[in-house]
């Protein structure tokens, strides 16, 4: 059975503010799960709850059906939103130390530290102090710190923040590789295009409550069907205007975007287009994740 992290009914109140409100979702192994929500939605609080960094008023965190304890958390990796490393400690020694705190032997920790520094392209900085590194390289060391012990689940809070496109690609490639090797990955980000590219599943929360969760494909194809049709030499799309259950959303660059009602037969639309001329493009259009996000929070 694939390992899974389950968050069940998490509730946490800070005075009169309810940061988490009966929040329930799961992170299966081998998947990259995007954790989305506006600022203050409760993402960081949720992640902290997984690592026992705050007490929950209600709810439980389960790993493979059992309550998560300290020894399970040792097999998780964590990259907090506010990066945390000893500024004056050497990079390699710092990674070895963190690996050993996760239960590795000294030799395994040293080997893993070397591997990840090499994998992330900063092998030459192993003997540098952390505070001597650039922001991007510190970010890489932080990621290596979360990965050095070979975690079964990794949770990253805004891992892409402040990175240039090359850095984003490098970290994205590592996360995808981890998921392929069977590791569960949960990460939060406001960069929705990157989330859409990296994730198979997304979970969106707001005010500590679950708004929507599901596969990126299902969410992109969910809601109203959108059809893009291009008829040769037709700039007006007059043929589409009186079709039942069809609304013309936009005409741009010779193509018309149509929104279909649930009962509308797309083949009837195709036949109507063919009657108007030669159809050079006919396809359903996916919703961008940013649209899903905005709709979910509207």
């Amino acid at each position, binding site marked *: 059975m694939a390992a899974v992290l389950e968050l069940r009914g998490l509730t946490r109140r800070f005075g009169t503010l309810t940061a988490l409100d009966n929040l329930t979702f799961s992170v299966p192994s081998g998947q990259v799960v995007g954790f989305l929500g506006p600022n203050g939605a409760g993402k960081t609080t949720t992640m902290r709850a997984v690592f026992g960094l705050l007490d929950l008023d209600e709810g439980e965190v389960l790993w493979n059906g059992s309550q998560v304890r300290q020894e399970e958390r040792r*097999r*998780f990796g*964590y990259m907090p939103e*506010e990066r*945390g490393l*000893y500024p004056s400690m050497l990079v390699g020694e710092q990674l070895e*130390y963190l690996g050993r705190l996760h239960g590795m032997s000294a030799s395994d920790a040293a080997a893993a530290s070397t591997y990840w520094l090499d994998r992330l392209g900063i092998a030459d900085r192993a003997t540098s102090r952390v505070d001597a590194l650039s922001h991007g390289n510190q970010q890489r060391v932080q990621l290596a710190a979360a990965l050095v012990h070979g975690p079964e689940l990794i949770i990253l809070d805004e891992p892409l923040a402040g990175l240039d496109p090359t850095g984003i690609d490098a970290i994205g490639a590592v996360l995808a590789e981890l998921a392929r090797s069977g590791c569960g990955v949960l990460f939060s980000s406001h960069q929705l295009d990157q989330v859409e590219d990296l994730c198979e599943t997304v979970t969106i929360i707001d005010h500590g409550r679950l708004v929507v969760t599901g596969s990126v494909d299902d969410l992109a194809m969910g809601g109203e069907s959108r059809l893009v049709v291009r008829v040769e030499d037709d700039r007006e799309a007059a043929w589409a205007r009186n079709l039942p259950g069809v609304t013309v959303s936009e005409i741009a660059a010779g193509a018309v975007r149509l929104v279909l009602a649930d009962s509308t037969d797309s083949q009837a639309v195709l036949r109507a287009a063919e009657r108007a001329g030669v159809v050079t493009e006919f396809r359903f259009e996916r919703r961008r994740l940013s649209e899903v996000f905005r709709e979910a929070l509207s």
Partner: protein
Amino acid sequence: MKFLLFVILVAALLAVRIVRRRRAGGTTVATTAHGPSAARQYFETTFGDIGLVAAREVRERTRGRIYRVGTLLMLAVVAAAIVIPTLNKKASTTPRVGVVGSLAPPLRAAVISAGSEIHVTVHLVTESGLASAEKDLRAGRLDVVVDGERIILSQAITASDTSTIAEFARNLSEGLSTLATIAAAHLSPAQTSALAHPIAVPITGLTAATTKGAAQGTSIIGLILLFVLLSQYSAWILLGVAEEKSSRVVEVLLATVTAIHLLAGKVIGIGAAALAQASVIVIFALLLAKAVGSDVLQGTAPVELASSLLWLVLGYAFYCWVYAAAGSLAERQDQLQSLTFPLSIPMLVGYIVSITAASSGNASLFFKVLAYLPPTAPFAMPVLVGLGQATWWEFLGAAMISVVSTVCVARFAAGIYRRAILRTGRRVKLREVLRATS
């Protein structure tokens, strides 16, 4: 000294055992949650985490420039305190005495006797005349000139002058006066000889003699060292906790280890580095004092040395938790001073009152009470021991009170630390932490 070696040996054995257990554990994460293996795993995990955190603290602390330079600086200060008085003493240990005219045996005996009374050897020089003797005195080749019944120094002395030459001159004055009196009495040679070699009358006491003076000196030196070291080690804890919080690394650490293990490892690690530094300083001081023949540490009985070291450990154990809690409340380094000022008051009071008591040699009732209060006991109790005014059971009682108080303070401080260390964005108020659940 034996006690110190014993403490170091025990610490080393514990460290080796922890490392061995850790290595034996390797990367294995046991899946059994019940029975003896679960208990063993808990034990190994707990002590493994604390050992790892402590080892990092020792490594980083001893590697740091502040530690090395600080140790060297303190060694230099201690060396100066031991060697400089020795140099001054050596310059005056052999008064050069010029005697004008013949050096009769009674006169020689009187001069040597004047030196031996203050434990110095006298170098005698026969001068042909007063003019040449005064010339040598002015040139610094002589310290004292004896011309018949006159004693001449390069500079007159006052009644309050306690230098070696002054003491020697006074003794010599009495000796020459006695010789003159004997000569004036026209006694027989046998009577003169009898008077020149009096048999001392025995002096006895109702209780045995003590080395109070030396012990007083040792107490003051020990006190200064205790205060400097305790202040420094408390600051290490404070800054260490504040650094982990301000750099946010604590969130990464607490995702893996518990707050109490992290704090315990920090306290033990910094404590080990501190004890190593203190041990180096004490051993250096003892060896140097012996090598240069200093009497600064003369009379330092092993029990007094052990007492000071034990109270350094107890004092550190008490204050480190309090300072750790204070460090966890700060958001920035500049907030630390205002947070720690109230904590430094009992330390300062204990130090000042103890210095006063050690200097005067009197321990008031108030001072004796301070010797039982954990915040001031690290300073007051070693002074009581130095003054010989504490029995073994009083010493043990004060130590027990300190240990029990430390356990209570540690529990309270660990609670504050656990609740405050992850609260970022602004300085955490103690009231908020005490009300909070997590």
